[in-house]
Structure formats: C-alpha cells, structure tokens
C-alpha cells in the first residue's frame, strides 16, 4: 500500500513541478507587465474634510469672505466659475485644433476648427489652446475614467465592478452631484454606463455602431444649442463621437473626417455665439467656462489604445466668458508660440489630462475626487478674472497687493489643498492596497511634502511682514517667496505623478525578463520530461515507427500556430488559423490513409467537421467585431433574414432540445456497451440523463415565445439550474470519493480509466451544457464527432504497428487545435467584451463576485479547456488496436503521462509565444485592446490546464 502510494506520487509529481514553474514565471511576468491598481471605492472626498493646519487658515478666510459676499458656496476652495460647458470630441487629435503653422507639413485635416484658432488668437487672455497629454491606455472608457477620477486607470483596476463598467471610485461627477451641481449630459451613452444614476438630465445616444457617423452627433446638436439658453444646469457635458467613428472606418485622411470637422466647426461657432450673447452682467453665462476637448488622439488609421504620441496627444480648448483676466506669471506659463504667415503670434500651452479633474474641482469650488493625483493647472486657473480679485488681501493694504500677488496667493492656497488631498490619497493607497508604493518612495514623498510646509511658513512670514508696511524690496521678495512655495508644491505633485506613472503605466522590464526566462526554463524541463517518458515508453514496449516524423510534423504545426501570435491580425483570426491547421492535418491524414490503402470514413468526417467549424466562424471574425455591440447588431441581421419568423423561432427552440436528446441517447448507448461498470453506472448515467432532461425543461420554461405562468417561469429559470449545479457537484464529489475509497474490481487498467473518464465527463457535462446555453448540445455533438475522428485516426497513423508505443504527438496536437477551435466556435473571443456575461446569471438573480465569476469562468473555458483535458485519456485507451501483449500497467500510465505532458507542452509553447509577443509589442497601439487580453486569456488557460492536468493525473493514474 505504502509502495503504491509512493509510486503514484513519483508518477504525477512531474505535473506539479511544471505547474509550480509555470505559475511562478507567469506571476513574475505579470507583475512586470500587467499594471494593476486597487480602487479605493469606499473613500470619498467631502466638504467636511479638514485639510492640514497650514491650509485651513486660508480656507476659513475664504469661507468667511464668501459668506459675506454671498457669491457661490465654495467648499475647499472658493468657486471661480458658476457654470461649465464641456464639449468632448472623441479622438480629437492635437493637429485638428492647433494651427498648422506648428507642424512641418500642412495636411488636409488641419485648420478645420477655425473658430477655436481665431478665438485663441484674438482673445488670447481668455481663450487658450492646450496640448493635453493623455496617459495610455487610450481607450475611451478608460480615458473617461481617468478624466473624471483624476487618476491613472490601468488595464486591470482591481475593484468590484464586474461586467458593468460603472465607476465605483470617487469621481468628478459624483462630487458635482453631491455638491448640488446639476449635470446635463448628452451624446455617447458610455457616460450613462459609467455614471448610471448621476445625471439630472441626459440625452444618451448609442455608441456601439462604429459605422454610424451621424446619429450621436445629430442628437447632440439637436439638444446642445437650446440647452445653452436654459439655466437648469450647472455643468453641461456634450460628447460627440463622429470623429472617432470616421477615423475607425475611413482613417484620418478622408473626406468624411474633414466633413465631420467642418460640421463641428459650425456647431462650435454657434455654441460660442450663444455663450457670448449671454455673457453680459447678470446674464446666465456671465461666469461660464467652455471646454472643447478630446479624450484621446488617434493614429492616421484611426486606431487608438496605445501610447504613441499621436494617440496620447489630444487637444483642449478653454475659454472663459466674462471680463478677461490677466496673464499668468511667466514661470507658470507653458506656452509655445510661433508667428503665423501674417505675422500673428499663435500660441498653445501644454497640460496633462491627469490634471483635469483637480482643475475643474478647483474652478467650481468642490472637493477634488479622492483618488485624484493631478495638479490644478495654473493657466486654466488663471482664466477666470475672479482669481485675480484682491478679495483676500485686507482692504487696508490693498494698494500694497498687486494683482499678480493676489492671484499667486489664491493659487498657492488652491495648490496647498491640492497637495494635501493627493498626499492623503497616496497614504491611504499605500496603507490599504494589495501592492502599495515602496518604502523609499513614501519616505521621499514625506520629505518633499515637508519642504512645502517649510516654504509655506516662510511665505506667510513674508506676507505678514509685508502687511506691516515694509519697503518695496520685501514686497518683491514676498512674490519671490510665493513663487518658491508654488514651485515646491508643483514639485511635490510632479513627483507624485511621476511615481504614480511608474507604478501604473510603466512596465517593469526586469520582472518581465525574469518571468520569460523562467518560463523558457520550464519549457526545457517539460521537454526533457517528455523525452524521458517517450524513451521509457519505447523501452517498456519496443516499437519501431516514424515517431520522429510525427514529432516533426506536430512541432511544425505548433510552431506555426504559436508564431502567428506575433501579429495582431492573426490573433484576431486565431480561430480560423486553428481551424486551417486542423484542416491541414485532416487533409494530410486523408492522403496518408489513401497511401496506406486503409481509407476510412473518419478522415472524410474530420474534413466535414472542419467545414462546420469554418462556416460558423466565418462571419464571427470580421475586423469590426472587436466591439461587442457589433456582434449583437450582426445577430439581429441574421434573424432578420428569415422570411418566416415563426418557423425560425420554432426551429431555434426545438433544435437545441433535439441535439440534447441526441447527446443523451449517445451517452446511454455508449455506456450500455461497457462492461465492468459495477454498481455506479446506473447512478452516473441516469443522473446525467435526468440532468439533461432538466436542462431541456429549463430551456422550454425560460423561453419567451410561450407564456407560462410567472411561478412556473421562475421555477424553470432559477430553480432548475440550481438543481443541475447541485447534482453535478454531487456526482463529482461521489466520483472522487469512490475513486479514493472503493477499489474497483477491474482487471484491465485501461478499461477502468475509460469508465472513470466517462463518469467524469458525464458528471461535468450538465453544468457546462446549461451554462453554454442553447448552442451547447450542438457544440457537444460536434466535438464528440471531432474527438472520435481524431481517436480513430491516431489508430491508423502508425504504419507498421508491430507493437504499442507512445501516443502519436500529431493526435495530441490535433486535440489541442480542436480545443482552440471550440473556444472560438462557442462564440468566445480573447477579449473581455467577448465574455458571455449572461451565462453568469443562469440560475441566479443577484450578483456575487465569487459565485458569478466561477460560473463565467466555467462557461468560458468549459468546452475548450475543461472537457478536452478531462477526456484526454480516451486518446490512450480507445485506440486499442493491435494490443501489445506486454502492455503492462506501467506502460499504460507512461502513455497517459506522455499524452498529458505533450498537451501541456503544446499549450505552454503557444503561451510562451504570446508572452514574447506581448513583450515585443508592449508599445504597440493595440497592446491594451488586443495583446493584453489575449495574454490574459492564454495565461489563465495555461494555469487552468496545468491545474486540470494535475487533478486528472491524481484522478486517473
């Protein structure tokens, strides 16, 4: 007994070793590559937060003056604008707005938004063009998140928003709403997904159809101008999508793009006119700020998502209505100027998009979002004439206070609160998040923060001296000290932004390299084990056959597939590539079978199987399918084709049931032929068939075409899936228990494993079937067909079968290709919007992260990872052709080990290539849209396969 336990452990410890190696290397690599950030969803800024002592003094002073004058109710800072209009033009490149004089070549799409350029030229003190630098990933959703939270959203924000993209962190919109500002939203409906309950009024328009250039824009235009004449809002957000869509479809250098820009120019002209007309004293827009901004840029092909200059450089135009302000002190000015052809001086400034949330908060006098790490931009802050008021100088000393000094004092106060808020966030983040900032960083941070305070007290001393009526030099000195203080705060904020970027947007190449190296070591180890097993295999059962050729062929196949991951197009078409390679093996084995003169029907069936796969994958993979919504549009058009809708619905209702009963029948027929089932055959097979019947009932009751009473409907929708889950888990549990405690009286080891495999599959299948929905039974039948063909073909493959030997690696390769095909055939894609979130809610109404996550996980990987691994023993047991007389127990397990090792090795090679590809392409524009999700899916798949192989080896061996 002891000995057998020992030998079992010797047999299977390889798998655990490989699992550990893979996990370690993937952990290292992922730490370097996938930047994660923890969302602090419970922390919100509020008015009652009291800043650190040095700032409070001034805040109280502000409050006092506000209360007495009765203008606006500021919270942390005094409000300087009453209303803000934010017009977001999606994917607004910097060169759409900036005058063409700044660029080497004049391109057709430049100088189209002439109204903005004219305003920036003619009213340069109140209207400014900024080059706003966004942080990658430059996808719209993440940029919206970045703009409103003032943080650096990463590819994976650890938080509890699952499926729904709603922002749970503190954000600008939340602050606006909770401080009594009325927000009006129009345009892109992403805003409503992100902020479902925040807007007082909204006119959302669907953003999913990339081919549609006008619906969103026309809708916004219809509502925008009339809204400008109303005063039932404080902040207006209008999000136009046309430029983004035109870029995606036609590219930047195209007529539709230029038409769009000209259209926007007209709209903006009207907007500016409307605002100007009402900007007189006591008119609604007396104190209004207009923003025209992009959320990110785009390349000339219209792509965005990565971190190239074209994508991150977007523009921001800001204009204040009302009395024009002075200009900022030169050392806070970031302007770059150039003289145009007519000698006019054209300028643009630069800012970070990161600063947007903090700046808006300061301008409106609301607390900045808790997680904001931006700095209040001095040039934007200076746009309001109010910030130049001398209100916080004592009236008696007004003469002594220059305008500039007053502004700097104001700005210093704002920055002080700004610094305090950022420091508070960083401290809390480090204390609570999974991976905080390093100790050295925090120490240095405290040091820099301390410097602000020392310079601050200097400044205050200087001020008080000044107020006591000291001579002019000291007054100048006070400006100097103020400047120093502002510099210190800016330094602090810049340092924070730097370490935050390092943490959230920079890859750690050392860790990535270490992970990759380790992964290659694990591949080597894997390979050595395979060679050893194959040697042992040959030893125990002498055979001479063209194993080498077979190895070569499968190596070529795997290498082709793996290297296809180096190109984004092949990743998009991965399903087709897999099916192409599978078909190639099919054709080759067809040729082989004819040469051998042993033509069998399986070869043809495998080809037919490929046609079925190819047909349905054909349309699922068009380039536009990256957007999930496109898929739904496509589905609608499919169902629209059918002339008689009724027949179609009946067919779509009936056919799953038909296929389901067929698979139940198949299971019954297969198992009835097996002997040695012992006691538990009836239990497993009958249990599974009952589950199948329940699935059928569930689908019938759930369908909308028939009207069942509410109770019955509920019963079918919620209760039956729960029963199926429970019975599936129960069967699995029983299987494990019997495996451990009951010694089966089966003489033949192979027969025993077949029984185990069938029992295991039948226990798993109902769960996977019910989760995969109505396509499930058909996919199951299809995969049974494919698997059967592969098994039968591996039977034929060796030419001179004088004995039994290791399993043909080509068969294992085919098996893994089949699994890859099934992943795509079941409608999955390597992207997060390709997940079928509906499956997570089969049998449940409420959301629970772990429960629903597990269901979604099983649904995603069920057909492509779980079932193929669990059924791998068939490849060893079923083709029991010319049985070798010396097929000992040890030989059988060696073969099983060989199959598992080979399968794991194939997956590991493809994953290794994905990792290499992600490393090479880490600056590629589609890295966050395509490569990173692919990497995640592959890595998760590999770990899952490793775990499953370990479990399977425990169970079967």
């Amino acid at each position, binding site marked *: 007994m002891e000995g057998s336990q020992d030998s079992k452990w010797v047999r299977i410890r390889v798998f655990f070793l490989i699992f550990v190696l893979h996990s370690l290397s993937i952990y290292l690599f992922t730490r370097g590559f996938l930047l994660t950030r923890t969302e602090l969803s419970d922390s919100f800024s509020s008015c009652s937060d009291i800043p650190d002592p040095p700032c409070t003094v001034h805040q109280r002073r502000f409050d006092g003056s506000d209360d007495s004058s009765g203008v606006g109710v500021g919270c942390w800072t005094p409000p300087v604008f009453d209303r803000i209009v934010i017009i977001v033009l999606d994917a607004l490149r910097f060169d759409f707005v900036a005058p063409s004089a700044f660029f080497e070549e004049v391109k057709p799409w430049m100088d189209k938004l002439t109204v903005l350029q004219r305003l920036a030229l003619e009213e340069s003190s109140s209207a400014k063009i900024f080059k706003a630098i966004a942080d990658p990933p430059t996808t719209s959703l993440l940029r919206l998140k970045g703009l409103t939270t003032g943080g650096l959203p990463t590819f994976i924000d650890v938080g509890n928003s699952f499926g729904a993209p709603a922002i749970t962190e503190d954000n600008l919109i939340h602050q606006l709403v909770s401080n009594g500002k009325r927000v009006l939203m129009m345009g892109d409906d992403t805003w409503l997904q992100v902020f479902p309950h925040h807007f007082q009024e909204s006119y959302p328009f669907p953003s999913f159809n990339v081919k549609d250039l006008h619906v969103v824009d026309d809708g916004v235009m219809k509502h925008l101008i009339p809204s400008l004449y109303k005063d039932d809002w404080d902040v207006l957000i209008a999000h136009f999508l046309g430029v983004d869509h035109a870029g995606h479809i036609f590219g930047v250098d195209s007529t539709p793009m230029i038409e769009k820009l000209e259209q926007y120019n007209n709209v903006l002209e009207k907007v500016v006119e409307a605002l100007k007309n009402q900007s007189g004293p006591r008119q609604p827009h007396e104190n209004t700020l207009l923003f025209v901004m992009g959320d990110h840029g785009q390349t000339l092909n219209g792509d965005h998502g990565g971190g190239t200059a074209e994508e991150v450089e977007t523009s921001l135009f800001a204009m204040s209505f009302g009395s024009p302000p002075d200009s900022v002190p030169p050392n806070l000015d970031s302007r770059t100027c150039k003289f145009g052809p007519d000698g006019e001086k054209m300028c643009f400034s630069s800012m970070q998009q990161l600063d947007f949330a903090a700046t808006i908060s300061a301008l409106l006098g609301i607390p900045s979002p808790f997680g904001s790490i931006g700095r209040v931009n001095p040039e934007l802050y200076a746009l309001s004439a109010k910030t130049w008021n001398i209100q916080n100088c004592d009236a008696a000393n007004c003469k002594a206070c220059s305008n500039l000094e007053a502004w700097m004092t104001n700005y210093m106060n704002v920055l002080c609160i700004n610094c305090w808020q950022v420091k508070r966030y960083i401290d809390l983040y480090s204390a609570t998040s999974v991976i905080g900032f390093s100790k050295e960083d925090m120490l240095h941070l405290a040091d820099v923060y301390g410097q602000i305070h020392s310079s601050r007290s200097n400044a205050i001393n200087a001020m008080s001296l000044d107020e006591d009526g000291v001579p002019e030099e000291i007054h100048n000195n006070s400006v100097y000290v103020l400047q120093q203080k502002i510099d210190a705060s800016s330094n602090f904020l810049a340092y924070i932004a730097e370490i935050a970027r390092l943490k959230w947007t920079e890859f750690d190449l050392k860790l990535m390299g270490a992970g990759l190296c380790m992964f290659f070591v694990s591949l080597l180890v894997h390979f050595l084990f395979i060679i050893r097993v194959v040697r042992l295999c040959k030893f125990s059962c002498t055979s001479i056959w063209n194993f080498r050729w077979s190895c070569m062929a499968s190596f070529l196949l795997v290498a082709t597939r793996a290297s296809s991951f180096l190109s984004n197009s*092949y990743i998009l078409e991965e399903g087709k590539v897999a*099916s192409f390679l599978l078909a190639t093996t099919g*054709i080759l084995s067809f040729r082989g079978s*004819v040469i051998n003169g042993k033509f069998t029907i399986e070869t043809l069936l495998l080809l037919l199987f490929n046609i079925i796969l*190819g047909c349905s994958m*054909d349309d699922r993979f068009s380039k536009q399918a990256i957007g999930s919504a496109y898929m739904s549009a496509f589905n609608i058009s499919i169902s629209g084709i059918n002339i008689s809708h009724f027949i179609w619905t009946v067919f779509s209702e009936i056919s799953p049931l038909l296929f389901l009963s067929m698979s139940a029948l198949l299971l019954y027929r297969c198992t009835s032929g097996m002997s040695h089932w012992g006691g538990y055959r009836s239990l497993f097979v009958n249990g599974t068939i009952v589950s199948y019947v329940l699935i059928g009932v569930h689908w019938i009751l759930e369908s909308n075409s028939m009207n069942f009473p509410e109770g019955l409907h509920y019963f079918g929708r919620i209760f039956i899936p729960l029963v199926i889950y429970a019975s599936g888990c129960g069967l699995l549990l029983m299987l494990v228990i019997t495996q451990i405690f009951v010694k089966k009286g089966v003489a033949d080891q192979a027969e025993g494993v077949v029984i185990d495999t069938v029992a295991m599959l039948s226990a798993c299948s109902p769960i996977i079937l019910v989760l995969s929905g109505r396509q499930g039974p058909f996919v199951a039948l299809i995969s049974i067909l494919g698997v059967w063909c592969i098994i039968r073909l591996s039977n034929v493959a060796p030419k001179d079968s004088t004995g039994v030997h290791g399993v043909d690696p080509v068969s294992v390769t085919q098996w893994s290709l089949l699994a890859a095909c099934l992943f795509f055939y079941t409608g999955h894609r390597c992207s997060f919007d390709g997940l079928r979130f509906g499956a997570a809610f089969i049998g449940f109404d409420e959301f629970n992260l772990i429960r629903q996550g597990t269901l979604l996980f099983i649904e995603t990987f069920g057909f492509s990872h779980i079932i193929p691994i669990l059924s791998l023993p068939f490849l060893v047991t079923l083709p029991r052709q010319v049985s070798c007389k010396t097929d000992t127990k040890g030989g059988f397990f060696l073969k099983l080990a060989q199959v598992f090792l080979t399968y794991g090795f194939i997956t590991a090679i493809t994953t290794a290539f994905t990792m290499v590809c992600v490393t090479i392409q880490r600056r590629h524009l589609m890295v966050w849209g395509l490569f990173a999700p692919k990497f995640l899916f592959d890595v998760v798949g590999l770990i899952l396969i490793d775990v499953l192989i370990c479990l399977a080896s425990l169970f079967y061996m």
Partner: protein
Amino acid sequence: MGETDISVWKASATHIICGLGLFVAFRIARDVHGSNLVSDTVQTLRLLLVVEAPLIIGIYGFFRRDPQHCSWMNCMGFGVSGALVNAFGAVVLGAPIRIQYLTRTLYWSLLMSLFTILFCGSCISTCFAMWLIVFFVERPRGVLEYMICLPAHGAVIGAWFGAWPMPLDWERPWQEWPICVTYGAVVGYSLGMLASLVCTFVQNRRQHVKGD
C-alpha cells in the same frame, strides 16, 4: 511506367510552353483587357483557364499511353471532378462559401484542377490510378511522373501558403479570396515545373553515368 520514354528535351519544352502560356495569359489580361487578377478576378481567371487548358491538355495529350481508353470526354469528367475536390479542399481550409464568391471559387477550382488533375486525365490510360500517383505516391519515379507530380504538388502547396496573408489587416484588395491563393498556386506551379526540370536533368545525367 518510369521508363525514360520522354527525353529531357521534350520535358523541358513542355514546361517552357506551359510556363509561357501562363505568362502570355497574364500579359493578355493586362495589355488587351487592361485587367489583372486584383481588379477583375473572374475575368482573369477565365482567361488563364482559356489559354492554359488547351496547352496543357494538348501537350500532355502527346504522352498519352492509351488513347482509345481515355477519351477527351473522360478527361473533361476528371477535370470537373478535380475541380470539385479542389473546391472541397478549399472550403475545408476555410474558404468563404457565401454566394457572392461562388463564381470565383468555381473558376479558381477549375484552374487548380487544371494544374493538378487534368494532366492525368489527358495522358494516362487508367486515369484514376494516375491520379492516385500524382498525389499519393511517396516518391515519383521517371520523367513523366516528375512532370506531373511536382508541378501539381507545387500548385497545391503554393495555394496553401498563398492563403497565409489573407487574415492580415493590410486591407489590400489582393487579400480577397481567391486572389492571393491563385498567385500562390501559380508561383508554386512554376516552382514545381522548375523542380521537375532539375530532377529530369539530374536523372538524365545519372543514367548517362550509369550507361558509361
């Protein structure tokens, strides 16, 4: 079979004529019709067929062993079934089967059939046996088998590789089915002819050496 009843000279002449036929067909398409495979796929494919089919059938017809047994009708029948086999293979590998591609697929598969199977219909008595030889012998022997086997394999392998650029997102018109596959097949066919010539020469020299 396998006897060197075909001289090196004849073999090279055949290949050169076939190659010239392809070249001329492309030139006619370009100069006379002002079209090419990319702009006018169906027309060009048809032209290739019209020019190449008589050449191949005619020339290989010279090598027929058993003219009575293998009639022209028989040959045509094989051509059509070969086209079906090729089309089936393409669909298995993932060619689109939508209705708008039907004519293209038809012409493409006829061309492939010409490259791969029609010869045997036109030159061997027991057609099916030869067809098997073309694709299912492991090593071709003799000049005639080189002449048939290598270009046919070349065409199929070339077409297989020709499908590789199709998924790339370059958005070039030639990435459409079956344009790049046809280019691949033509290139593969030409390389196959070249290989067949080389093999013929090598075998010829070896036999001379043996004879000496």
